[in-house]
């Protein structure tokens, strides 16, 4: 066990955990940031997606010791009040069924739009296909990403 100091959603948080503990479980068990979900533990489903310096990463296979000074953004830090264009689009299109995979979907989409504000249909598909949705909300996910890409302020991202 060792102390790790992490920059999460603009705050410095510390956890006393084993060095190989995946960021996912530090977020959930140590920091109570449960919006980041466990689905498979092997980076196959995308439910655990967070941003590491703005890039979408699978937190279930990311050891806490590898984070260092990287800035971590979770769904809770994507916006203060759910007003990120991707979150807004998700609500407007009414994407969620059970909702479990959706924070991972939103984080993946937000990272895509940050890098590529006007993605083509193929680019949206290529990126979003990495995230499983067991309910089958894929059509609406596609539609919501497109809608978010048409929002006037796609650069209105996280607090940092």
């Amino acid at each position, binding site marked *: 066990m060792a102390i790790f100091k992490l920059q999460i959603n603009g705050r410095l948080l510390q956890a006393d955990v084993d060095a190989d503990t995946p960021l996912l479980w530090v977020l959930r068990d140590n920091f109570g940031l*449960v919006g980041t979900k466990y689905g498979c533990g*092997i980076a196959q489903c995308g439910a655990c997606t967070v941003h590491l310096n703005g890039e979408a990463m699978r937190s279930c296979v990311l050891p806490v010791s590898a984070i260092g000074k990287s800035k971590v953004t979770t769904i809770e830090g994507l916006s203060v009040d759910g007003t990120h264009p991707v979150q807004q689009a998700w609500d407007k299109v009414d994407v*969620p069924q059970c909702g479990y995979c959706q924070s991972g979907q939103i984080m993946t989409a937000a990272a895509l739009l940050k890098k590529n504000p006007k993605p083509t249909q193929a680019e949206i598909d290529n990126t979003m296909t990495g995230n499983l949705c067991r309910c089958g909300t894929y059509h609406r996910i596609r539609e919501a990403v497109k809608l978010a890409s048409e929002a006037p302020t796609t650069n209105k991202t996280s607090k940092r």
Partner: protein
Amino acid sequence: MQTLANSSRRNFLKIAAATGGGLMLGFNWLESEAAPSAIINAAGTNAPGLNFNSYLSINPQGIITILSPNPEVGQGIKTAFPIIVAEELDADWTKVVVEQAPLDTKKFERQVAGGSGSIPHSWQRLRKAGATARYMLVEAAAKRWNVPSSECSTDKGVVLHAASNRKLGYGELATEAAQIPVPADAKLKEIKDFKLIGTTVKNVDNPKIITGKPLFGLDFYREGMLFSMIQRPAFGYKLKSLDATAAKAMPGIVDVVTFTNNVAVVGKSTWQVKKAKDALKIEWEKADTLESTSDHNRLFKEMLDSGEAMVRRKDGDVETAFKNAAKVVKSEYQCPFLPHNPLEPMNFFAHVRADGVELVGPTQTPELARNETAKLLGISPDKVSVQLTRMGGGFGRRLKADYVIEAVQVSKLVNAPVKVIWSREDDMTGGSYRPAVRYRFEAALDAQGNMIGYKLRGASINAGNSTREDNFPAGAVDNLLIDSVDHKSPITTGPWRAPITNFLAFAEQSFIDEVAQAAGKDPVQFRLELLEKAKQKPAGAIKYDIDRMKGIITLAAEKAGWGKKKGADGKLIAQGFSVYFSHRSYVAQIGEVVVQKGKPVLQKVYSAADCGVVVNQSGAQQQVRGCVVDGIGHAMYGNITFKDGVAEQKNFNEYRLIRLNEIPEIEVHFVQNEIEPTGLGEPSLPPAGAAVANAIFKATGKRLRSQPFVEQEEFKSVS
């Protein structure tokens, strides 16, 4: 309108002035046919009282809180139920707050997410709850204005008196309304007057879902709670010996305990517990047959050829019909075991205390969880409380309480609050699968291509009756025999979304396509002719509505341009037809397939459903689309195989679920009628597999008779 005095308590609608002077209205579903009456709780508490089921409250600010009693598993019930109440109440939907109710069968009667049964069960009850409250609000306003209530109307949370141009909000009227005697039979709206039902309403939990708020069982944390993961035996094994020395010495580990062949590691965090579980040294020993997929394939053949089967339905004289047949069509269809794979793995919180048990988590049947807990511990069920969390999917897996009972066992053994968490591997290898089946069909055609004889035998592994003997084409064929044989296996099975019909429909609707082909008839026309025959000259009992079935077939065919639709190249598009009646709803689907680079590609699915009145367009549209994606995804890719009792696929790297880049376009249509609504969580799934397989046949001439399609030679050999 008749009103009742405050007499018989158990039939009452419960009216209580809520804290702060609001109106609380509970209502009894159990006896909702009986006349309700009122209790005025002048003490100003919001105690719901005993024997009441659902209730709504209105506070002085006009905020209407509606409790949703049924478990939310992604079927949208937490949005749909309140819509129905709010419609009859004429509430302002923007002022409705929905809360999940805990398990309370004395109040809520049926708290189950399963069988697509919630809406049909509660439709009238929910309407009555809303209409009753609306009546009382109108009476209160009329009294205050001193006008006849017949001159008053309601709209979006206000009572209006048009003649004097006055209006009052529901919040302003709540306290006075609480004192109006409860009507025995408040008038329900005409369906044509619905304003909210049938519109597009968003999931009420969207704000929490999109911001990552704790909603799910896995998100539940409690001060002092311990975490547990369990090593369970494979199928046919039992625990021989355990060496937990290394695991117990690992950081954060509190204890390692065993119960009924399970080894539970208990500790202070999920990751520590998972690592310690991996460090367990366990020896298992054989306790039953160790079955492999190759055994199942042999068993299927034995069962299909067996002289002994349970006869499920017998009409006419099948032997003679086949003897006289001009043509006989014979085919076999097979489907594998499937895990449910809800994205939120099994988990549950339990705290076994001296005075009772607290349970919190995702379950489709909280009452079963409570009763099994009470039985295990030898305590009264009312000593067990169950809080329902939103579920990250269920698909039938959470209709079992095994994972709840584990949490109870571990909490009892370590005397602490515990959350048991299954890993994905535990989930996928842990059983309760969709059963595996193989069907043998035989059809006898006369010289004119009429189906004069039909035989179906279902052979299954832990499915019980793998047929639904009264489903179409039963009733349309004079000579029919349906029977089944089942093998009892150590591999555990359970209900999987649209149980039995999720594979049976694929087999039946593909076979009907084969028979139509053999008869030289159009598949849609062939089905319509059979239905017409069933109507004119029914054979045996008919347990489906022939006109609704014909109606949905016709609607789907019309929307898809069946048999006429051409592609950009001017050629007819290869379409495949399928229709199924299950869980009280009628659904027809048409798949469209093109061959690209030597592979059949599903481009589009048309789905038409008759589920009566559509409660929420947004929820219903997505429910159908999700069912189609689920149905085609599993038909194409899903497969769990076994080697000596051990599941060979353990996680999503080995088990393929459909992904975003594999979905077809899906066009959804609903029949518009005023029939009482039926569920949608399941009925749109069963027809999907055959719509795809039949379209693939049309496009390639290859008939897919086994799932998963991508593993079949017929699929691979398309060129």
